């Protein structure tokens, strides 16, 4: 039982503001794995506001399992990725450029076990921070080459409108990149989650 007199209250969120780029970008932030790593994939995209303008002062963060569907984290009850953090960091961070674009180099994650015997399709959890966002917004990126897994994914299945669901699936590009544009508002507004 929680005792309400001793439970500390949560610290509220505040906007990341326009000047986070002094601190938060890291030189290797966009590289979940080094460029040139075998089987590395590149995720590119742009961040847009409700008027269709690009957002040049946003921050994109990604978090994901490794190709084996495991996490470099002790709270994965199946055990952390063998080799742990050193073998696969799982975390990417990229500020948006003056043209609103971001780029993350990573490995495709494996599928994950979920409740009731379901399987979660491979996905990245994505956080977006920006001036004008008083709290982060969270979305997920799924993979276009996994139609069967996506059709059975419990999170995608919880979104009934096909047009909305489609905002969560990256689009393949000719050069082998995956495009995941994020629309904070408007006609093509991305699905965001209450986490």
């Amino acid at each position, binding site marked *: 039982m929680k005792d309400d007199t*001793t*439970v*500390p*209250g*949560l*610290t*509220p*969120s*505040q*906007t*990341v*503001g*326009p*000047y*986070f780029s*002094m*601190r*938060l970008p*890291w030189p290797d932030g966009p590289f979940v794995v080094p460029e040139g790593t075998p089987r590395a994939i590149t995720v590119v995209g742009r961040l847009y*506001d*409700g*008027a269709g*303008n690009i957002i040049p*002062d946003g921050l994109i963060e990604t*978090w994901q*399992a490794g190709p*084996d*569907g*495991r996490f470099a*984290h002790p*709270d994965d*009850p*199946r055990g952390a990725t063998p080799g742990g953090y050193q073998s696969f*960091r*799982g975390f990417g961070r990229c500020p948006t450029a003056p043209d609103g674009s971001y780029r993350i180099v990573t490995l495709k994650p*494996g*599928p*994950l*076990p*979920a*409740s009731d*015997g379901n399987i*979660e399709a491979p996905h990245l*959890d994505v956080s977006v*921070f920006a*001036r*004008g*966002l*008083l*709290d982060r*917004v969270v979305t997920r990126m799924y993979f276009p080459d996994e139609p069967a897994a996506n059709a059975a994914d419990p*999170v995608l299945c*919880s979104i009934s409108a096909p047009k*909305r669901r489609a905002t969560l699936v990256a689009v393949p590009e000719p050069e082998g990149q995956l495009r995941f544009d994020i629309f*904070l*508002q408007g006609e093509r507004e*991305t699905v965001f*989650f*209450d*986490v």
Partner: protein
Amino acid sequence: MMTAEISASASLAGAEAGRLVLPSYERPAPGVHPPLDFEGYRSTALRHPKQPLVLLPHRLTEVTGPLLGHELIIPTDSDLTTQYDGEPQGQRIIVTGRVLDSDGRPVPDTLIEIWQTNAGGRYRHWREHHPAPLDPNFGGLGRCLTDAGGRYRFVTIQPGSYPWGNHYNAWRPAHIHFSLFGRAFTQRLVTQMYFPGDPLLPLDPIFNSVPDEKARQRLVARFDIELTQPEWALGYEWDIVLRGRDGTVFE
């Protein structure tokens, strides 16, 4: 009590047969976090989603998270007054506190990143137009890891106020930006710490975007004469509370 009982599929690489029990993290009470649409802060107008957020139950990706920082930190990272050849201008301050979860448990070994203006209210950033002088001896950047008890400590300079153009004669109260990871994706938090008695606090839309008065006041540090070092620096204490686990994990 909320736990997810998960049966791993034998077809999954790396998954073990049997049952997986995951923690679930507390959902913030209404009024603790600001609404994404807040009229007083103009930049929210075109940047807030208009569709309702979709509830995401906490699964493996949400109850894990990046455990970063050990390879990033050097000792001067937590003392913003010693990062350049000379001493910065302004009032030296110590900002310290604990990172806890809402069960009161310390969050050890977690990365904190901070950024702030100099004493004159000027950020060292290419987009900054405020005509206050840069300080050649102050960058305004810090980071550290919490210790085993969840404690952090920065030595820095009292930041200044600056105009920000949101409305006529708009000035931000002095603040330090904080970024925290906790140990799970659900605990990620970016926030700002303010100073007690700042006359700009009642006028600031960003501070006042937090609906709950008690929650809003938790953004304000406490001056502490015990933390203040004689002949050296003023002391402020500020605890940061991240979402705790909603239920007990058991077999």
